[in-house]
């Protein structure tokens, strides 16, 4: 057991037969000017447009490397989380999740109210493409929340239910957690609260009850506060936030998202 590694256990995957070296690549990514400048940007509360770009690093490299892997390249894909606040105080989200190991390219379009829990608002749409040369090449689905909190998904004209949300808990999309967690950070860390939240995972799968709470702080490789997400049907994930409310690292069982660059309104 190697305790000399400076990385927190929740995103330390520099073990086994990892080659390229996960830890070194992650540390190098965090040292990029784009990541440093994100930490220098103004507070999240004042921004009306934000775009964070993340690299997807596989936690377990052997067996999951992409087909066209280049020597020394660990990344297996990209996540782009873009959101813009409309005049009517609604946030429009455009998220792209592109993973060369799964072969899927997912585009999520959804809307949230301008509250710290980012409750889902109106309808949403997902475009999925598969680049694997199999029979499945594309899939689109639309979704909406009825007045009875039932989640309806429509695929190719056929409507199916994805469950009924609990009205007592705020319901948001997992991709809005990039704003929810920074917004709740003070409450979770300073006050030591845990909060319950319902998630519509990838805008298709209801995770009715999840718990968000403060995990830990680290000072190396850069100062970050960590938050956990636990729940029924959910594998734990860990979200690491810098002092200015940018999610820098998200680590779950199989992959770690690391901020590559941030763009947005810094006025």
């Amino acid at each position: 057991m190697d305790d000399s590694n400076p990385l927190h256990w929740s995103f330390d995957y520099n073990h086994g037969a990892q080659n390229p070296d996960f830890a070194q690549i992650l540390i190098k990514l965090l040292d990029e000017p784009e990541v440093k400048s994100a930490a220098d940007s103004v507070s999240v509360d004042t921004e009306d447009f934000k775009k964070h770009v993340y690299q997807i690093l596989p936690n377990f490299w052997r067996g999951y490397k992409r087909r066209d892997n280049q020597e020394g390249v660990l990344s297996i894909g990209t996540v782009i989380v873009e959101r813009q606040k409309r005049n009517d105080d609604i946030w429009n989200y455009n998220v792209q999740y592109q993973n060369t190991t799964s072969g899927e390219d997912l585009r999520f379009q959804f809307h949230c109210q301008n509250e710290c829990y980012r409750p889902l608002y109106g309808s949403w749409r997902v475009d999925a493409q598969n680049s694997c040369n199999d029979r499945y090449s594309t899939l689109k689905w639309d979704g909406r929340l009825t007045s009875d909190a039932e989640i309806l998904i429509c695929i190719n004209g056929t409507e199916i239910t994805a469950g009924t949300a609990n009205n007592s808990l705020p319901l948001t999309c997992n991709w809005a957690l990039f704003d929810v967690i920074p917004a709740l950070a003070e409450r979770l860390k300073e006050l030591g609260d845990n909060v319950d939240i319902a998630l519509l995972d990838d805008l298709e799968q209801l995770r009715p009850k999840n718990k968000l709470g403060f995990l830990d702080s680290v000072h190396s490789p850069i100062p970050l506060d960590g938050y956990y997400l636990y729940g029924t049907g959910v594998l734990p994930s860990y979200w690491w936030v810098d002092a200015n409310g940018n999610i820098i690292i998200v680590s779950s069982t199989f992959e770690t998202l690391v901020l590559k660059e941030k763009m947005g309104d810094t006025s």
Partner: protein
Amino acid sequence: MNKRPNILFINTDQHSWDALSAYGNPYLHTPNIDLLHRNGTSFKKSYCTDPVCAAARSSWATGLYTSETGVPFNGGQLHTKIPDIGQILRAGGYRVFHCGKWHVPGRNVRESFEVLYYGGHDIGAGGAAYYDSASTHAVADFLMNYDGNEPFYLQIGYVDPHDVCEYLHNHEEKRIPNPVEQGILTEDELPPLPENFDYDERETVLHRVCRRVDDALIHARILKAVRDWDELQWRYFRWNYYRFIEKVDAEIGRVLSMLRQTSFYDNTLILFSADHGEACGSHQMFQKFSLYEENVRVPFIMACLGENVSVKKDQFDETHFVSGVDVFPTICDYAGIDPPEDVQGVSLRPLAEGEDVAWQEYAYIESNYWGRAIVTDQYKYVTEYKPKTVEDFVPPGPDSEQLGLAQLFDKHNDPWETENLVNAPEYQEIIKTCRERLFAQESQLNRQQIIHRSPKRIISNWRKRLREHWEHGKIK
């Protein structure tokens, strides 16, 4: 309209029999697999053919035991002359589709099936986090668009809860605090240690060399890590395993929701099973490979969401032994196609229809090339063959001279398999009967020589280590 049913075979990976809320497990919530349980016949005495992925899957694909298929462990190669279920059903007029995990080395899934989805990087052993959701998308696309004239057979191989393997690998070189220590979960939220956490160390040599000794043949690094675990870490491992199952249950729920909205739902037979189980702390073990119940007993459900497939609903069969070799002939039976003559399994259709039929009184299981088990209503007999002096690469048996150590458990009085009765004088007749059954079963098998270099190398390496223990008495 097709009279022959569509057939949907949904399988999970590393899913123990008792890890379903339908069977009374209070530590997880599986509403969707439970729905299948209510809409069909599920079996209590359901056993895999071999408690490891590729081996068990080679049995699903062929209806043969793993000493016959050429895949008696991960890394084997399916013998080329053995037909698979895709080839047989296609020849019988079905459109045959595959989606997700296949893991039958030696057989190109794309040649036997039309593939809906098989990953950007072909799906190997694990990676549910990458593949399972995409598999569901592929199935959604298929169900919403299939307009073929032929009935379809679709097998969906979900990877979870196999990702628990990576949960374990994650502990190999770092200490992860337990969640109570971190303040994330309370002790009350964690499942308890299993009843058989403490175990009888009088195990077979194969079992010990593979999984117990410091330089174990399988996952020695994980073994080293878990030896440092406290009770809460073992319990947290179990907590995580159940979350992986809930995750895959939700995927299955989406498939069932979609199926229900199609015209197929009333005429689709649904089979649900798993390739093998997960030790999950029982006998202080993790993962698979052993012949204990947690590893070898798996869910097996035959269901229909509608009324047009002959399957008795809400029937819980606690009597009959069923096996992974039965999947192939069962599918053939419903499809109205004769299976190949040398298939070992039998169709479960009579049981699913509630018929009273004569049935085999035991299950036969193989493991790690040399391991064997016979399970009867009351007893489980586990044994092993010693490595041959000159290895001919033909899976061993039946051979009383070559039998090694054994374990006998009285399942009625010791359902957790905690006391090995093999040396107790009063059980010698039971052991004799079990051995006779073992040899009778093995004499019916068409064990074929392993011919590929890679699996032969695995056998040679393992054999060398096992012989060291037998010849030099490293294990008494």
